[in-house]
């Protein structure tokens, strides 16, 4: 058992139960800053938790960070765990983070697709989707990043339940997506929405469903490029920056398209590193370097959001 945040090995991959248990120890270690909220249950009835970093106030302007929406992208939640610890331990030490948390909240969802994550540990390491049943099909699961109400069912998503990019029967049909949607809407004061995927080193902004530029494209591009410059400064990891549609492919029903259309201007998606040898099997000894470089970019975005309130 990894009993405390001090003995926890951040340079290892962990099972869902271990991460959930570690979240409790983080809350116990930083009770005035960190709390854990259950925002609902998954399809297979697993709890879905967010970590809230807050120094007080009520529904302060907030930043959302989710990791692990695609279950096989293990370095994403592993980076999330390291990042959550970093935020908690740097509060009161790092001036800009402290200033941010004195007026804003940060919410982190470390395992956005808990059923899928558990399934990658028990049955199929390469599983990407949720685990919901699809009536009339032998194949299970919906791509939770094609299930948001952002031109749902449009180009770049599959109608085939056996596809890894199946969009599902309707927008927000996946309870995991709906739980996040309901939470974001009920809060009502998110200023930034950051979704963390892996791999291939990209920092993206909306849209994915359309190759048209969003009204804030120029600003998002500038912020993204500055964030990536900081990321790259640590180990030289090279990122591409651009809209989802322009730097990967057209993909409808994605989370940051939805958040942007809800008025959350600073919506970004990361594809964390794999420099080209391992894909989803990124060795555990690269977790901390990945998290450390990613933190520089995340921090830049968060600082920018803090200084440019709207």
């Amino acid at each position, binding site marked *: 058992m990894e009993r405390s945040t001090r003995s926890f*090995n951040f340079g*290892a*991959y*962990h099972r869902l139960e*271990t991460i959930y248990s570690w979240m409790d120890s983080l809350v116990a270690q930083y009770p005035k800053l960190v709390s854990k909220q259950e925002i609902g249950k998954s399809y297979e009835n697993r709890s879905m938790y967010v970590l809230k970093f807050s120094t007080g106030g009520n529904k302060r302007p907030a930043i959302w960070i989710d990791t692990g929406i695609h279950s096989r992208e293990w370095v994403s939640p592993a980076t999330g765990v390291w990042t959550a610890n970093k935020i908690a331990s740097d509060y009161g030490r790092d001036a800009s983070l402290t200033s941010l948390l004195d007026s804003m909240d940060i919410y982190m969802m470390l395992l956005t697709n808990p059923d899928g994550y558990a399934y990658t540990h*028990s*049955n*199929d*390491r*390469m599983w990407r989707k949720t685990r919901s049943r699809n009536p009339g099909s032998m194949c299970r699961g919906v791509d939770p990043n094609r299930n948001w109400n952002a031109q749902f069912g449009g180009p770049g998503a599959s109608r085939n339940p056996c596809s*890894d990019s199946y969009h599902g029967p309707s927008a927000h049909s996946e309870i995991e997506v709906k739980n996040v949607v309901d939470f974001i809407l009920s809060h009502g004061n998110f200023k930034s929405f950051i979704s963390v995927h892996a791999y*291939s080193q990209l920092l993206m902004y909306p849209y994915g469903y359309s190759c048209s530029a969003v009204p804030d494209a120029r600003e998002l591009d500038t912020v993204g490029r500055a964030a990536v410059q900081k990321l790259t400064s640590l180990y030289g990891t090279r990122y*591409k920056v651009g809209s989802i549609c322009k*730097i*990967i*492919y057209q993909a409808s029903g994605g989370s940051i398209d939805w958040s942007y259309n809800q008025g959350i201007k600073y919506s970004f998606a990361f594809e964390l590193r794999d420099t*080209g*040898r*391992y*894909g*989803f*099997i990124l*060795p*555990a000894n690269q977790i901390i370097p990945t998290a450390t470089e990613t933190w520089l970019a995340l921090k830049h975005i968060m600082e920018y959001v803090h200084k440019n309130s709207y």
Partner: protein
Amino acid sequence: ERLFVGDQVIRINVESEEQIQALQALESQEEWKLDFWLHPVSADLPVDIRVPRSSLDSVTEYLQAHGIPFSVMIDNLQELLDQERAEMVQNQR
């Protein structure tokens, strides 16, 4: 528990629009059960495909027939997964 013995992950650095189209056609070959880790979209990004052992010959032939060079990124996926699992067990201990 699913095993990936002999599955390879291949990488293709796409050089032309024709190659992208040939790879996109490959995506629709359902019987080969290919798992596109990175999809064919532009010449700027590589394409990574997990190829089940049973489809290796067919895919190799297809790529050669279309003049598409590739390199093997992961020779045997299961070996990496076994290492990953052993490491996790050790960490848990």
